[in-house]
């Protein structure tokens, strides 16, 4: 199992994502200017910032050469995980429905939140303990998810903020969504910052373990 973590100019949580992925498999860094995905089994678009995000989060990164390869990879059914800025990039690139708007507070918010897993039947949540909420931090200024009703089926919502936990005013408390095919997933919370009780929580590890399990099944099949 080999993860690839995309590094854009200005990426911040790229190393964190790499370290988290390495807890469940092999992981390599993918340079934004390369179109070669180095044969990875899953791609992670990490959180933080890309190109400074001065225009609009993700608006520049979606044009990076590596995104062409990632789009093709996704079309072929490859697993793509977008975390925070990665979620924003995937929405900008049209790989995920909807958009991320400025938080209702108009402020950056860094906070540990509880998430409800809405579906345990996706490649990204299949290892999550049934019915148990996850404690994972958010940290963003532009994390208020919005999608028109017709653009998003209920089955595409994999994570919601638990009641009272919505940190940004997201529509229907949505914290993470996948595409219609189910192989591209974006979320605002940072599972890579919840992989060790020492630094706060290990609940995010289930996301990475889900990906590994799914890839392992696919290889066997």
């Amino acid at each position: 199992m080999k993860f690839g973590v995309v590094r854009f100019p200005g990426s911040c949580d790229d190393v964190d994502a790499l370290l988290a992925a390495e807890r469940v498999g092999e992981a390599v860094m993918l340079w934004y200017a390369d179109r070669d995905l180095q044969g990875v089994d899953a791609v992670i678009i990490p959180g933080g910032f890309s190109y400074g995000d001065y225009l609009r989060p993700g608006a520049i990164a979606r044009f990076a050469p590596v995104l062409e390869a990632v789009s093709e990879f996704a079309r072929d059914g490859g697993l793509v995980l977008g975390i925070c800025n990665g979620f924003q990039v995937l929405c900008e690139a049209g790989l995920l429905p909807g958009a991320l708007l400025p938080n209702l507070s108009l402020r950056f918010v860094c906070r540990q939140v509880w998430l409800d897993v809405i579906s345990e039947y996706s490649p990204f949540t299949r290892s999550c303990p049934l019915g148990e909420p996850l404690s994972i931090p958010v940290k963003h200024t532009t994390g208020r998810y919005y999608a028109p009703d017709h653009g998003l089926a209920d089955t595409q919502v994999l994570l919601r903020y638990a009641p009272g936990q919505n940190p940004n005013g997201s529509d229907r408390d949505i914290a993470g969504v996948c595409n219609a095919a189910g192989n591209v997933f974006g979320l605002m919370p940072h599972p890579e910052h919840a992989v060790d009780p020492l630094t706060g929580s290990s609940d995010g590890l289930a996301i990475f373990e889900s990906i590994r399990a799914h890839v392992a099944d696919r290889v066997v099949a």
Partner: protein
Amino acid sequence: MTGRAISRGGSPPGRTSNGRRASDFRELGLTDAEYELIIMLLGRHPNEVELAMFSLMWSEHCSYKHSKRLLRRLPTEGPHVLFGPGENAGAVDVGDGLAVAFKVESHNHPSAVEPFQGAATGVGGILRDVFAVGARPIAILDSLRFGEPETSEHSRYLLERVVAGVGHYGNSIGVPTVGGEIYFDQAYEHNCLVNAMCLGLVRHDRLIRSAAVGPGNVLVLLGALTGRDGIGGASVLASAEFGEGDADKRPTVQIGDPFTEKKLLECCLELLERDLLASLQDLGAAGLTSASSEMASKGGLGLDLDIARVPLREPDMEPFEVMVSESQERMLCVVTPDLVAEVIAVCDRWEVLCTAIGSVTDNGRLRVLDDGDVLGDLPVAVLVDECPLYDLEPEAPSYELYPPPAAVLRGGEAPDQLLLALLASPNLASRRSVFEQYDCIVGSRTVRRPDEADAAVLALPDGAGLAISIDGNGRRVACDPRAGAAEAVYECSANLACVGAEPLGLTNCLNFGNPEKPHVAWQLVEAVEGLARACEALGVPVVGGNVSLYNEAPSGPILPTPIVGMVGRLPDVTRAGRTGFANEGDAIALVGPFAPSLNGSELAKLRGVAPAGGLPVMEPGAVRDAHAAVRDAVRSGALSSAHDISEGGLAVALAECCLAGDIGATVKVRIEGGVLELFGEAPGSAFVVSGAEQVVAALGRIIGRVGGRSLVIPGSIDVALSELRAARDGGLLQYASSPVWSE
């Protein structure tokens, strides 16, 4: 590079082509005597470019001319010190072949003029100081002071914008802001303080100095284009008092670009990892002038610098503007000629601008060239070392310097009411609304986040931990500069003890008023003496720092505010201590010498009492022993919680332990102590710890038990946790103004 004869200058300065009297030495902040000295040392008048360079290098900000002699008093040596003062940042050994580089620096005046960019570039500047020694920045802390939020809309605006600025830069560049402190006092109404501290991690063998080496080597400028921003910031803004018309100074504040700095940071670290650089220096105050002359001075060499090669943002910049521009996100490095092509290749990959702008010489002169024409030619030693140093003329004031604050409490309140008022006061209320605007976890090292422990704790690769604390209390220092400054050192060390860490070194930022005034000079001299004695008593060396003077408005000086940032190590990060009470039935003990005083306390402030009247002087040995006892107990894993007693005294410390752990406590105090024992302050010497009875009994006097849903002190206090929480949570949040959506 060879140059022709000096083409401009040699005569007394006049008007520039654009009509600005940039060359009037008085307007540039030099005194008549200093100008005479320059003429004597050079044997001629400096020309316009040279005068601009002198005005910056001989400014208070760059030359430390009023504080240099005084700073020699501070102990700078210790067994862990790798880099002491003089490098871009100090560095101490943290074991396993790793070093931690760190420094605190002020950006007070720029932040007062333009709070968002002032604070942002303060963070950007201190980050560059740390990666200039080759270290990867891993943590930021901030120390902020503003006027009273309740009565001053301007202070609320500064709070909002400064916090947004700090967060903007730190969050965007991916370095966690793990701790800090904020206090409010009317004395900061016209001079807010914005001090930022950064820590970086580096292997010993990758530490790099700034001294220029090797005549014939190439001087390379990395990073952003040079523009007109920040022209004269150091001399105009940082080295003079504020007065009327400060809005005119807005253009002297730099604009931050964390994206460019992120690329610059990664690029510099890769250049160092590949061993391509001979020396490295960041460009901060006084831009190219300061960076180049400091590099030449430290290396005992000269530099030729061709401004025609400096990539400009605006094409028609005057030569002096290029030399003094404080455009952000730039670094200067020395490269051997054979490695220049490789350096350029790495910079290209990171999309970082990289330009050879000069060379190292062996003649000890800093020459400014313009495509061959010599625009300036100065002995480096004159520029860097010959600035006159001034002795301070301290004199203890015979009157109270600071007026009494407006009283919030009318007198006659019961202890319950006093406790709730203290918890709700802007100085003691929850900082959550601030620290939630900072990313405190990026980097995956943060083991103790804000509010979880008395110090921030980061994990090191070998399983040890790094603890960091930043502290200073201007009201206490105003009461007694010597004892108050010592308290700042004790307080930081106490914070480290609470997580189980032993101090390795400290950095400080001395924020004071106009040192030419005898009473401010007295505050400064006494505070440095207090810092020095406390450092000696605890065995903690000062490895770097910063001085910010002239924090003064027509209404008077700021409170004397020495800020201490301390770094320590704990052997096992999994045993890092916590603030909050944890277990029903745990015993609570009071540890250490407890000599509470109401002078300069938060209660005195709420009662409308001016900060004056002296402080108890702590016996350093007793303080040191108490710190060691708590530290060892935390390290052994035997304690459930540890918290030091600081602002608000014992009662507030107990309330904070209850709130952090979401559990109550019942505590008995000596009734005769009353308000003094409950709310008197003794920063840095006494602790509240909890744990098994036999464990805590060995450390100090048992005063109560953890349990229930209230804080109960029989005979004086009985308040439910929910009520404590409501008071503390709302105290600062109510002053948060609506954010301005501009970033």
